[in-house]
């Protein structure tokens, strides 16, 4: 593709903003509650209004201020789980994921919302991150570029989990496009004003971008540094009790996205011994010491960084859209 070619993409008429997918990640909980208080009116002057759906994803967990009630909601959106048979004894979150799939999906279908923005907090020092399953979803990548430009004083990164659509498991995979907006550090069960404000600004700029896109603005392409997850590292654990036997080393703690080299300190045992990174390749650590990941066996995740060339994009015109729809229908008939 030529560097000055502009890619045309379908409009995004419906956007969902979801908070409280984990009930103790409070910036999203309070932001969604605030947004629900304000009545959404379709402004007549607006040329390309966007239908914004505001969703409190896990009300029970939010009410208890726990991550989840029975099971992690944000792992319940695989096709298998969503289409599995329902029973009375299903965990609450399985039932809820199917409700959300009906509301915002169905995942993979034409009825699904165009964009899902799922709000999260982390105890790791990650600044603001957009997390997606694709490194070539130009909508998400352009939103990222827009946020970087509009909120320059917050460190911002784009994280890619290389997981197929079939295996994708999180709420943001229900929409045609989607990403998690992850902001830290913030302890679970706590709302920090600076983190709340960053999330509020992030959501506002994201919605502004969607309106601009829908109204025909051309967004110039450029480069984005994408961090693609390679592997996780667990804590050293006691073979009998399975309790951790070391903590993230002080030299690594809070240093998300600072390149980790072979032999760099990784953990410090309770008797003060340093355990070092034994990988062969320098990689970028993130989700360092995330509270919720102790039970998932993850002390930190590691990523490779690469530069992705993002093309310029604009919204399809009506004729282009009709032509595409016709083509789609023909394919379906065949």
């Amino acid at each position, binding site marked *: 593709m030529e560097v000055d070619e502009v890619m045309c993409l379908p409009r995004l008429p419906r956007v969902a903003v979801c908070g409280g997918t984990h009930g103790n990640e409070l910036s999203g909980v*309070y*932001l969604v*509650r*605030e947004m629900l208080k304000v009545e959404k009116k379709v402004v007549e002057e607006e040329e390309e209004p966007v239908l914004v759906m505001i969703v409190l994803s896990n009300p029970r967990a939010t009410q208890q*201020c726990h991550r989840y009630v029975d099971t992690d909601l944000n792992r319940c959106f695989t096709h298998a789980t969503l289409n599995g048979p329902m029973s009375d004894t299903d965990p609450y979150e399985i039932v809820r994921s199917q409700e959300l799939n009906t509301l915002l999906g169905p995942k993979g279908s034409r009825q699904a919302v165009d964009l899902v923005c799922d709000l999260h907090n982390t*105890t790791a020092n990650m600044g603001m991150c957009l997390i997606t399953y694709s490194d070539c979803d130009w909508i998400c990548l352009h939103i990222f570029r827009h946020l970087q430009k509009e909120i320059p004083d917050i460190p911002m990164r784009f994280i890619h989990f290389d997981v197929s659509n079939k295996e994708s498991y999180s709420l943001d995979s229900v929409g045609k496009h989607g990403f998690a907006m992850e902001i830290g*550090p913030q*302890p*679970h*069960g*706590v*709302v*920090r*004003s*600076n983190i*709340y*404000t960053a999330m*509020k600004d992030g959501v506002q700029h994201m919605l502004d971008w969607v309106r601009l896109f829908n109204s025909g603005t051309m967004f110039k392409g450029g480069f984005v540094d994408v961090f693609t997850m390679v592997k996780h590292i667990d804590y050293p654990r006691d073979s009998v009790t399975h*309790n*951790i036997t070391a*903590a*993230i*080393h*002080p030299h690594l*703690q809070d240093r998300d996205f600072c390149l980790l080299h072979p032999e760099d300190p990784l953990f*410090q045992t*309770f*008797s*003060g011994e340093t355990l070092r990174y034994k990988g062969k390749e320098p990689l970028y650590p993130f989700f360092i*010491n995330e*509270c*919720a990941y*102790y039970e998932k066996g993850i002390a930190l995740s590691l990523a490779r960084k690469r530069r992705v060339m993002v093309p310029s994009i604009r919204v399809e015109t009506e004729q282009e859209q009709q032509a595409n729809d016709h083509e789609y229908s023909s394919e379906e008939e065949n």
Partner: protein
Amino acid sequence: MSRRNRKRRATGRRKKQEVAGRPAVNRNIQRLLQASECQAGLQRDKAMESVSFPPQSSIAICGGTHGNEMTGVYLVREMQKHKVDKIGSVSISTVLSNPRAVDVCRRYTETDLNRCFTDALLSSPITDSTPYEVRRAQELNAQLGPKGSEKAVDMLIDLHNTTANMGLCLIFYTADYLPLQIFKYIQNKMSSVPVRAMQLDIPLSDAYSLDSLGKHSFSIEVGPQPNGVLRADIFNIVKEAVDHTIAWLQEFNSGSTFEAGEVEAFTVVKSVDYPRDPVTGEISAAIHPQLQDNDFKLLKPGDPIFLSFTGETVKHEGEELYPLFVNECAYYEKKIAFHLAQKRTFKLPSIHMKKD
């Protein structure tokens, strides 16, 4: 200090505190000493030149009183793994206070264990509907107390974490010279972290926390650390503070005299809740960025304290005070955004071990 200056300083302090409706510090210490004389059997020299205490030979180190405050959990587990039960002249019990809460990594299962040690709750009859933590408090009282009796451990150190930026903070109930001398010792030894003392002005019968079981006790509160998370730097700070405490006890038991001096401590006078929605009861503001992480920095009238979710600033009204426990996770449900404290100076006499 000359007698005239001592009197001048004492008068000044008395005037300040009488304005606030509080008894003078000297009379307060006198009253407290008389109360603790029965328990500790100490001798007091009228000029307060040196005070003696019995040997401190049995101590308890408790962690996991709140099951998601991880430093204490792991430090106690580590000591138990290495079967630490005696260091020199000091025999040590290590206790995981709330094992059920630790198992599920929650603060508590039914009710806050660290509010279950009032005289009333410790003597309340146990029925089928008694919450787990009330029962556990009575077990701990039997094991480490009974509270207020001769059999109680000499010292109980309870390990806690906070999400607030409080550095290393020792928390006492009374102006007890022994823990205050330990505080002075730790403050001199540890320069990597701010070390402060907080005092709760509550009589022993109303004292509600685990550390009230011991004859001379205090809590070690270190932050900031998120609940459920273990930070190595915080672990190292708590371990060092515990090591210094044990070293001090060794020195004390071997006959050393610890010199007189002065320490500053923060006495909580009130708490401030978050602004809340009158209908839902939900908080409608967060701690203002200018207050966030500024525990122990003097708060003046007009200083911002909250920033609402819609962007309005709420300012502090009232006297100049010191904020503590700013944005502590567990206090949202207790309706506390932060405590406010006065800073007081406590004069310490020199202390030494009483020889039989």
